[in-house]
């Protein structure tokens, strides 16, 4: 479900070109590389591999999903056997797996309120998922999206509160404040990610460690700044005062009336997905990023400045997370309040589910959003404990994110003849 043919083709295309060495890479630095299109060799045997791979992947994702539901159902049924309840309605079990999965995956699509819940989570994860994916494609493991989102969001809230007295109200205010806020979020998120980028490039500090540690720094810095300088005097919670009304992202569409979801934010998220995809696929910078991610030494040889690339791709990754923070502040909380949900960490899973393909981030984030809203529905409608629902969500993610395992299995099915080996063994495009 996460990968499509163009992505598989793109990856193989890039592989092919980097293998061709400096000539192709140098070429690419000046001309645009269209990796969505498979060039002349599309008629060759390779195309069979690619198409088989795409089918295979769809098959695998669906099979993985169904397998997770199957395993989960058994788990739910068995759990229902051991607990006590007044009416063991389903074959002697207190929990009905069909109802559980109905509420997890179908109920979230019923009614404006539920759909808005799904979309709220999805939109926020688009930003962090993209953030992680961009870094991944450059061969960098950005675990720091959470911290970048926190600081981006904090900076946005403070900047909005600061300019509030100067800003006009109404639609004009929105037109001025929202882009301003997004810019502030992007700049602060980007700068904060540039730190581990620079540390990696110029001091050879492992970015996994530095980004993890900088998450703590960001969260605690935000807490300190607010509780010491920007505390809302009327509240016992550690939070800033509210941002100006004009800067709030409202649902606009009556269907979503009153929800914490904005169609504008969704458009922005999808736009950034498309933009990131385009940049990675069709620009010299994107080509540098991908080549570095596949084989840093080859990229270096081909004339990519590896230090600059590390810093710039981390900055881009952080900027995307920072925009996510800005949207979180404007769409959800209307202020900065400590205790930001783990959007950045979920973004890592979203990115991996998406095979680090920007386009794949959309369905992956949607899956997260649906399950988030779905587990809330279960909470409200069925007596199934939250923890068990957490297990089911975990199973879905675990199964879908383990394509390698299923690709191995697929070799023994009609979908995986020996010809697939080339694809299967290069690890696909999950180039972590």
């Amino acid at each position, binding site marked *: 479900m996460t990968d499509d043919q163009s992505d598989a083709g793109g990856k193989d295309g890039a592989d092919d070109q980097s293998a061709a060495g400096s000539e192709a890479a140098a070429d690419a630095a000046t001309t645009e590389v269209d990796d969505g299109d498979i060039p002349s060799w599309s008629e060759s045997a390779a195309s069979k591999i690619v198409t088989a791979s795409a089918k295979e992947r769809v098959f695998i994702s669906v099979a993985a999903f169904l397998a997770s539901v199957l395993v989960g159902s058994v788990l739910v049924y068995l759990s229902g056997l051991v607990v006590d309840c007044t009416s063991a*309605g389903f074959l002697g079990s207190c929990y009905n797996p069909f*109802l559980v999965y109905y509420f997890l995956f179908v109920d979230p699509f019923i009614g404006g309120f539920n759909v808005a*819940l799904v979309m709220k989570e999805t939109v926020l994860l688009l930003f962090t998922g993209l953030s992680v994916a961009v870094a991944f494609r450059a061969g960098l493991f950005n675990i720091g999206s959470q911290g970048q989102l926190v600081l981006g969001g904090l900076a946005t809230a403070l900047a909005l509160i600061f300019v509030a007295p100067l800003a006009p109200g109404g639609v004009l205010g929105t037109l001025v404040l929202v882009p301003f806020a997004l810019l502030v979020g992007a700049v602060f998120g980007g700068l904060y990610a540039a730190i581990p980028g620079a540390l990696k490039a110029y001091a050879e500090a492992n970015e996994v460690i530095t980004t993890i540690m900088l998450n703590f720094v960001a969260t605690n810095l935000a807490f300190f700044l607010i509780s010491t300088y920007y505390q809302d005097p009327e*509240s016992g919670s550690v939070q800033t005062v*509210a941002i100006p009304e004009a800067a709030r992202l409202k649902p606009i569409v009556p269907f979503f009336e009153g929800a914490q979801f904005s169609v504008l934010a969704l458009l922005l998220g999808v736009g950034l997905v498309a933009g990131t995809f385009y940049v990675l696929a069709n620009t010299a910078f994107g080509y540098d990023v991908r080549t570095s991610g596949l084989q840093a030494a080859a990229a270096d040889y081909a004339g990519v400045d590896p230090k600059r690339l590390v810093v710039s791709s981390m900055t881009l990754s952080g900027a995307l997370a920072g925009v996510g923070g800005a949207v979180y502040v404007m769409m959800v909380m209307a202020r900065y309040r400590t205790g930001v*949900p783990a959007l950045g960490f979920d973004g890592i899973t979203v990115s991996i589910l998406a095979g680090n393909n920007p386009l794949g981030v959309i369905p992956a984030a949607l899956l997260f959003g649906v399950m988030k809203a779905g587990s809330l529905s279960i*909470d*409200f409608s069925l007596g199934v404990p939250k923890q068990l629902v957490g297990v089911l969500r975990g199973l879905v993610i675990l199964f879908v994110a383990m394509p390698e395992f299923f690709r191995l299995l697929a070799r023994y099915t009609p979908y995986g003849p020996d010809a697939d080996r080339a694809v299967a063994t290069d690890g696909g495009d999950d180039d972590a």
Partner: protein
Amino acid sequence: MPSNRRKFLASAAGIGVATTAGCLSSLGGSGSDGTNVGVVYALGGLGDKAFNDMAKQGIDQAIDEYDINYQGAEPSGNSEFPTLQKKFANSNNPDYDLICTIGFAQAEALTENADQYSDQQFMIVDSVVEKDNVASYVFKEQLGSFQVGHLAGLLTQRDFSTGGDGMTDASTNTDAATVGFVGGKENSLIKKFEAGFIAGAKHAGDVEVRSAYAGSWSDPAKGKEIALSMYDNGADVVYHAAGGTGTGVFGAAQERGRYAIGVDSDQSKSAKEYKDVILASMVKHVDTAVLTSVENVVNDEHAGGEVSALGLEKGGVEAVLGQELGSEIPSEVKSALEESKSGIVNGDISVPTDPENA
């Protein structure tokens, strides 16, 4: 719409296996008769032996007495308050007659949702939301604080010691009649605690009260530091109104063999490891607030737009003696506490809300 949904549900559930008739009845909100109550708990969830568990107690009591269908929701973070409130307010199967929101942290979210769902009846505990459909329940913390101040003041003037049986040996120091107060952040709410405590201690006689603020709700190290210096300067009992910072106060009491007084819930239960130094706790009875609000809704008398300040009389606030030490407290002290309690209830004793007047 609800009937469509049910139909769809039935057919969806029927796929694959001949589902039993029990399947639909396992849906929540089994009937429209009775009063449907939803509760959005505070952070920490059920099992916190504090606010949330007390709220649940209130609900359980209400279920015993009336025909109540209850549904609870435990948020996993700040950002879920608005979502859960909306989820209850949006539900039409069942349609909730009352949504209880526990804790001041939900006030901002409720202020918005009360406007958005103007037909929905809400209640909030420990904060005031001035909306026509919200009943606010707050506590007269100064009264309960007066009671524990009185207790502290009485004990510091006596020879009082506890210990043995694996408990920390603790005693009062008879040289100086001194007690202490540690606040979290200095705001008008916590000053009510301080004012009541000082007044209560003074009510017991010539007692010196030391007060200090930690500036944080979650800094046990700071709380410990402050409390240690108070104990070292002759304080026998230290009362805290400082959230997580208060854990440090308890730690200091154990280290110095002195006493402490807890806050909000019975901390000799919720902070069990310190029960051998916790004399009492100034409990805010969230259960009373929840029960009262449910009763009002059952009787069709939802107190929307009103602020109910719960005092000592109906058990809104109370000085609850410690699990372990309560039985050790001399009966003269207990009867003196009863006296001052009835003095407050019938108005003979007036309790200040500002430490300046204490």
